[in-house]
């Protein structure tokens, strides 16, 4: 079995937001106007934000700030609260542990966005739009079949979308291995954010493979998961700073 997982070493992360930008171009997430972004309508599958998110008395005031930066893709939880509430199976956990989102099934009830404690799910308030040079250079990759539309495919308005761990890259890597007549190996595919990471802070691999980097790093005493108390068992593992 395969369980795709990501390790993010916060010691190496420089909060450059390169992962966010790589994700945006890889996955065709539309840019919204500054006014819409100010209203919380920006779509960032991979977000970078100060942590804790809301300042408390513990985070301190300038110049004695104790805030850190956090970078956050979808956690692809082992026990995802979002898939449980979906009324139509538009989102589900597949056999490789990826939490998938089918745009042509989603009815836009936004129960999953409400249920997710990490806020990784985004809703298309309007039909997505791109400025002209961008509109001509969208990623053509997609997962499409009858009643299924996934991956970087341009989303219609009124549906929910989220980080897919670049599932189209996985499909392509599998297809390549098949075309070359060999078995697919776990290290043949990484998501765009992992590939682009400036500080090489991100690792990707199969958690069921005892020799993979992610399995090795998961054992680190620095390893922790976000909001462990919610019982979601995320497959994104962070390595603590310091």
């Amino acid at each position, binding site marked *: 079995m395969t369980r795709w997982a990501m390790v993010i070493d916060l010691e190496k992360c420089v909060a450059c937001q390169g992962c966010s930008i790589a994700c945006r171009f890889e996955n065709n997430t539309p840019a919204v106007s500054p006014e*819409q972004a100010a*209203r*919380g*309508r920006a779509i960032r599958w991979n977000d970078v*934000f100060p942590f804790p*998110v*809301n300042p408390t008395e513990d985070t301190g005031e300038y110049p004695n700030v104790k805030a850190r930066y956090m970078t*956050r893709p979808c956690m692809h939880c082992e026990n995802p*609260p979002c898939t*449980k*509430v*979906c*009324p*139509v*199976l538009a989102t589900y956990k597949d056999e490789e542990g990826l939490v998938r989102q089918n745009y042509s*099934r*989603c*009815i*836009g*009830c*936004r*129960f999953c*966005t*409400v*249920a997710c*404690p*990490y*806020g990784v799910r*985004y*809703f*298309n*308030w*309007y*039909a997505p739009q791109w400025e002209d040079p961008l509109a001509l250079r969208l990623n053509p990759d997609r997962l499409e079949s009858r009643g299924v539309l996934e991956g970087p495919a341009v989303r*219609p*308005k*009124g*549906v*929910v979308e989220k980080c897919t761990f670049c599932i189209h890259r996985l499909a392509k890597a599998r297809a390549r291995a098949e075309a070359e007549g060999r078995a697919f190996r776990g290290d043949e595919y990484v998501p765009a954010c992992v590939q682009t990471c400036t500080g090489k802070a991100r690792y990707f691999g199969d958690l069921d493979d005892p020799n993979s980097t992610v399995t090795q790093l998961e054992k680190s005493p620095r390893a922790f998961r*976000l*909001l462990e108390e*919610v*019982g*979601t068992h995320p497959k994104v593992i962070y390595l603590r700073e310091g």
Partner: protein
Amino acid sequence: MLAIDARDKEKIVAPLFRTPRAFVLLVLILSALIAIGVAAYVRQVTLGLGVTAMDRPVYWSTYMVNFVFFIGISHAGTLISAILRVTGAEWRRPITRVAEAITVFALMVGTLQIVIDMGRPDRLPFTLLYGRLQSPILWDIVSVTVYFLSSITYLYLPLMPDAAILRDNCPSDAPAWQRKLYIVLALGWRGNHEQWVRLEKAIAVLAVLIIPVAVSVHSIISWILATTVQPGWHSTIFGPYFVVGAIFSGIGALFLAMTGVRKALGLESYIGLRQYRNLGLLFIAMNAIWFYFTYAEHLGIATGQQVEEFPVLASKLWGSFAPTFWVMALAMVAAFWVLVAPLLVPAGAAKVALFRPRLALASASTALILFGILQRIPMAPTLAALDTPNATTAAWVGVIVMLMLAGLGVAPWLKARPVTATAIAGGLVLAGMWLERWNIILPTMTHPRLIPYAVYTPSLTEILITVGSLALFTLLFVVFFKFFPSVSIWEVAEGRVIEEARSKIVVPAPEPSEAGWLRPRRFKL
């Protein structure tokens, strides 16, 4: 040919064949409001849900509040009327029809809110084609559908003999389509013994079955929230809390509806003080239970030391939701007092200087001015002396004392006008319960774990659609009672027969007890 009492014919049947100008005017106004709401919705569908004020993290807002509110109102009818039927409460007879109609129309408008809230309403059939029974939304679809179908049956069954009465007592100048409507709906009712036995049995069975369905409907709505892991929602008492709130707001809606019907059709001889008094007692009980649940729910959060939950509570008590929270609390206290005060105030109270409406007005204004000063509302005078903590506390105590004085002063006025008082209580509770749903859904939405705290103010689209929905509910209600009797004719007639039979029975007076001090004392208030 089914006979009808002359009183019923004049008061209940005759208005169905008249079209007063006020009715036409009301329908036109309501239709205009609905048209504006429909236009706002069409714009929302064309452009996307972005035209609302929803955003990340406020993914659910006004439409969801409306949904919970309307489904809550729907408990007016079926549940109350079913409970009263099962317990054999004789006084229910003139108000069951109004209550059951509220249920059916509130369910229609409530379900509509979910469709309005959907990003892809065109994919609504997917919930049936690919429905996952593990999702609370599917539970909701199942329970609301069952509740709707049983409510509409429960409305129709007692209507059948009435349709037959109307069929047989149509005035000669009645339009042909209306006559045909009653013929079809009467389903060949002849009123023979066999038919009555079957009808009574069907109603009795349905009344029992519908009670658990109604309880399930509002429990499941609460579980949509409570089955998530979000701070403030993940509560075990949400099921009963929502059911109590639903019955409570349902009685409020019933108060307004029955007062409206009584006033519009002059049904004072049918819907009398007995109905108001008994429903009022139920209302007071529900109010007390509601307060108990609200207190228990918030106490648990206040003392639980959960870092994510406390900001939700804080936002209600003194943060951005404090206005809606305290207005809700005040509305509920006022509704409680409006119905309790007439029971407590002695008859001659109006002679005491304390119990003067004029004094009530004066103390209410004083409270308002003090409140304005405390909140630094620009129009209010500023008093520098009120800035010290002790003075602020004293001023708050003053506000509360003044409000209590106003409550005392208005009591005899309320006692003299039981119907008006009840209608006021009904209105207060409807407003309060709408705000209660707001205070449950929105603070959690604006205080998530990993998204910055947000503020939500509804957009014009949401306001127009909400107003349109309220207008739609009123229109359905008004049009229904233009064509169908607002009081169940046969049930009232049956009640008269029972009443008459009872009056002939002589109950012997209880023997005087030998031990005088053991005799129960009657407390006369």
